[in-house]
């Protein structure tokens, strides 16, 4: 056989090969849809059997969203809310969209919407690029029906989103990250998520008499910023710290834990928030038999982590909202679960970004409800109401004040609270909210 004949024969088979490849891929993608992708439509599961038995305390809904608990549906012209979600890449937070849709559907169906107007979502997805953040900004800026924008905790695209919007329309952030989120014009961050470590960790660590703290953090710009803030606060409070950074793309946390002296420190502070790194932290602690108190962020205590490791690691978790897994006397957690069960469908994720976005949806409703109906089409009026919103925040601290947190002008609070997990569903709250002042 002549050498070139192999190639020519191969060339003639290119089309069938390509067709086979394309068919394979289409089959794979079709199977992926039927196999249960991570994102789900909340409306599809509204009528589930479990949902019918859930009792929702509408007085809580009315307290945090405004309006009256009449049980009547909104019938007026819609109020369009721009919604920036992060889905389809790494990380991906489809639960945020489920939570927002559940909250809005509940407010529209059972609280009569905002002055009788239903809230509707105009959604823009960032998969993982800055270009998508810019496009979302342009989309909402150029849409005359959108007067206010909501934003999930974005890992990508938030800089271009805020740069494009440029303060022309107000942005309400459920859990802002340090950087563009906390310094953007005309934006308010309702919770502090991982940033609340900065203000509350020192007080909590002192309360458990820890003096030597081992800290680990990824070396990404945002992670490093948080780590720097936490380390400075702890050392200012007289605590001794040792910080080890690990590559942003690496999740072998055994080495940084040992480099930070985790086995000899009084407490370990892993500044990790993504599900992958939270799982890696749980695995690493198990691998080296870590017995020291570990103070992780509540963002780690997700259903995904529990499923992955069999149970939550027995750490103490820092929350900037109430812990949905722990006992709660206020009834807010039960309300959250009931609304999610009815409108989010069975198996809806209750951790990660879900409670933050759910809480922010009620805050937005409350802000809009406090305004005159004539002002609902005015971005400037919504912006003014947003900036003067002082709470209370559903699932969150009782009072808020934008601009009260040093170094993070857009944050309305940096309060945090701590829960210790003892295994088998046993959670112990360590007390109330710890605010920067204390």
């Amino acid at each position, binding site marked *: 056989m002549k050498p070139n004949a192999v190639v020519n024969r191969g*060339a003639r088979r290119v089309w069938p090969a390509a067709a086979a490849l394309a068919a394979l891929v289409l089959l794979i993608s079709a199977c992926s849809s039927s196999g249960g992708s991570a994102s789900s439509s909340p409306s599809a599961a509204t009528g589930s059997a479990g949902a019918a038995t859930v009792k929702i305390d509408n007085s809580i809904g009315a307290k945090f969203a405004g309006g009256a608990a009449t049980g009547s549906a909104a019938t007026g012209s819609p109020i369009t809310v721009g919604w920036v979600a992060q889905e389809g890449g790494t990380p991906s937070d489809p639960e945020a969209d489920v939570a927002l849709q559940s909250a809005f559907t509940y407010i529209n169906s059972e609280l009569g919407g905002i002055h009788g107007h239903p809230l509707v979502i105009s959604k823009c997805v960032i998969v993982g690029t800055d270009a998508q953040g810019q496009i979302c900004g342009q989309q909402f800026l150029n849409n005359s029906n959108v007067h206010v924008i909501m934003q999930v905790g974005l890992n990508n695209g938030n*800089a*271009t989103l805020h740069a494009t919007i440029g303060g022309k329309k107000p942005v309400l952030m459920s859990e802002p990250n340090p950087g563009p989120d906390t310094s953007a014009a005309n934006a308010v961050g309702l919770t502090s998520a991982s940033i609340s470590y900065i203000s509350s960790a020192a007080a909590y660590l002192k309360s458990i008499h820890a003096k030597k703290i081992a800290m680990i953090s990824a070396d990404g710009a945002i992670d490093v910023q948080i780590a720097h803030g936490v380390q400075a606060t702890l050392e200012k409070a007289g605590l001794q710290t040792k910080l080890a950074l690990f590559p942003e793309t690496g999740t072998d946390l055994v080495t940084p834990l040992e480099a930070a002296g985790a086995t000899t420190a009084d407490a370990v502070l892993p500044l990790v928030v993504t599900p992958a790194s939270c799982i890696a932290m749980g695995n690493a602690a198990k691998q080296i038999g870590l017995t020291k108190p570990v103070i992780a962020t509540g963002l780690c205590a997700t259903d995904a982590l529990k499923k992955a490791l069999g149970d939550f690691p027995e750490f103490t978790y820092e929350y900037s909202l109430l812990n949905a897994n722990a006992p709660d006397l206020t009834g807010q957690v039960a309300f959250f679960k009931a609304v999610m069960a009815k409108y989010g469908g069975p198996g809806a994720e209750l951790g990660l970004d879900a409670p933050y976005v759910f809480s922010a949806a009620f805050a937005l409703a409350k802000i809009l409800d406090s305004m005159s109906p004539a002002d609902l089409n005015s971005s400037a009026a919504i912006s003014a109401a947003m900036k003067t919103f002082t709470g209370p925040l559903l699932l969150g601290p009782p009072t808020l004040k934008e601009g009260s947190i040093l170094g993070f002008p857009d944050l309305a609070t940096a309060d945090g609270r701590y829960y210790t997990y003892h295994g088998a569903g046993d959670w112990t709250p360590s007390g109330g909210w710890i605010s920067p002042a204390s």
Partner: protein
Amino acid sequence: MGQLILFILLGVGPGALIAALALSVVITYRGSGTINFAAGAMATLGAYLFYGLRTGGYLFFSGLKFASSLPTAPAFLISVAVCCLLGLALDLLVYQRLRASPPLAKLIASVGVLLLIQAVVILRFGGNGQSAPSILQGGVVNVFGGPVPDSRLVLLGLVAAVTVIVAAVYRYTSFGLATRAAQEDEVEATYTGLSPGTLSALNALLAAAVAAALGILVAPLTSLDPTTLILAAVPAMGAALFARFTSFGVAAVVGLAMGMLESVITLLQTDSWFPTSGGLPLPGVSDVVFLILIGIALVWRGSRLPQRGALVEPRLPPAPPPRLILRPFVVLTVAAALMLMFLPFGFRQAMINTLIGGIACLSLVVVTGYLGQVSLLPYALGGIAGLVVSKLGTDAHLGFPAAPILGILAATLLGVLSALPALRVRGIQLAILTVAAAVAIQSFVLNNTSAGGGINGAPVSSPSFLGLSLGPSAPFPTGDGQLPSPIFGLLCLICFAVLCVLVSLLRRSALGHQLLAIRSSERAASAIGLSPAQLKLVGFGISSAIAAVAGILLAYNYGSVDVANFDLVNALGLVAFAYMGGITTVRGSIIGGLLVTEGLLGHYLQVWLHVSPSYYQLLAGVGLLVTVVLNPNGIALNKPPSFLRRRRRRVPGVQPAAAPTARTVEQVTL
């Protein structure tokens, strides 16, 4: 000293992963001459298959359920077997069909496989992590006061055993002998009755088995997610380079050493003497160390790196000279300008993204298409140029056009410096060095909180010239008045059109012919008095200057320089888009621009076809594979549709571009 030994042992975990992937890369290279960027993706797939079978008894898709959960041994064997089949299928359907294509085409195909596997994993399991089921159960060994999970030591033994077995197979079996023969010279191997195709398939199967098996074993040490194992392929490439893509022992040892080195650097950064940035340990030190080591390996062993004796001599696609330059560009530019001014804002932004992407593709046309050097660095240099513009604006209050000019000069200088290793090495080895350089620039410079973009990105003010604002939010008299401003689109269009004309003229010029002569044969070029070193420096310089324009426009577009825009994934994506479009022609860069993320094609998919952005990566992977397989020369060199061909007029003295061959287009006039 005790602590040092402790951290060296702790580094065995990540080191084993790098070593395993390096073994897989070497096996693939020996079998088919492919630099397989998808080795990490295969390890990821193996780990996810095992996860599904162990935890839910299903084979990746919940519809393919066997039981509530499978025991470890059958789950392991099934997972590895499926990966072997996939590796075999990919070799038959993709890599073997690219045997006559240049190594770059195979590399691009492996990037396509990587994108495809990652996309399918994300669509099926989501972008977040899972906890991989552990096979290597065990306790903890105390070493110099620190606990070391003994699973790492077991893993070290396993990697050593696999290395010895694979090395023995290739040394002592007839299969190994045949593979070595085919690697040396496929033609001779064919004459002795060996089938390079069969050998390639068997090696692909073995490479997939090694990657998947060790992926399953290593994943529990970290976390199972769609990124970590995939990106470990970058240092694995470095380890394979040290091994000259031949020695399994060297690949494994260097891979382990890289993991150990990274572990030791993690320890050292907690010391007070370790250099800091913004009060915290300097980021990206391990990436820089890897870059230096790879650079040393290349410079030291560059001339001895093996070139595969291929059955069909692979060549880069032809680079035909443009038949017409001025008229088509005037027509296209006017048409694009009208569209920028009068079409809706979404289209306008997509067009701006296309124009900037097209400029970035042009930089690759010069360095790869004309000069024949595979470099993934231009995009990172674009980031550096943007950073220079930002720093000049904030620190020296220099604006447009002085700051961009200085930014272009800085990137050009760096580009020329980056060409120095290219004086000793070429082709795919150079590509790997530039991958390491791109990673190092990203993590060490752009990600630096003080010198780089930092947390907010480095701010860049909107350009203005003689009082006329040219930025994305500048006012413009016509159109819908919505963002982005058409005037910024026109600025991008002018830059793109001018660069297109210049690059086209370069192809026709004596310098262009000389660059192509270097691409064809450096020895032949030297024999007729050309200086390969000088021409390489010139080519890299021109390419870097063009990339700098793209980086600066991107910075103006976003109002800041963000490290994420210039990372390795984006650099690989750019090379892929440029290759799909046609990396040897200006027309190809226009098509490449259309294909870039959030370019006109993406806009069309989203707005008109309502395709969710979640499926872009899947489509990109499939599109890349299908294009590379069907048309390895790129879309631009494909025959135009018949209705266009009929209308085309012959231009006297110029050969039609429809039927160029590698030899005719590379005949040079010197």
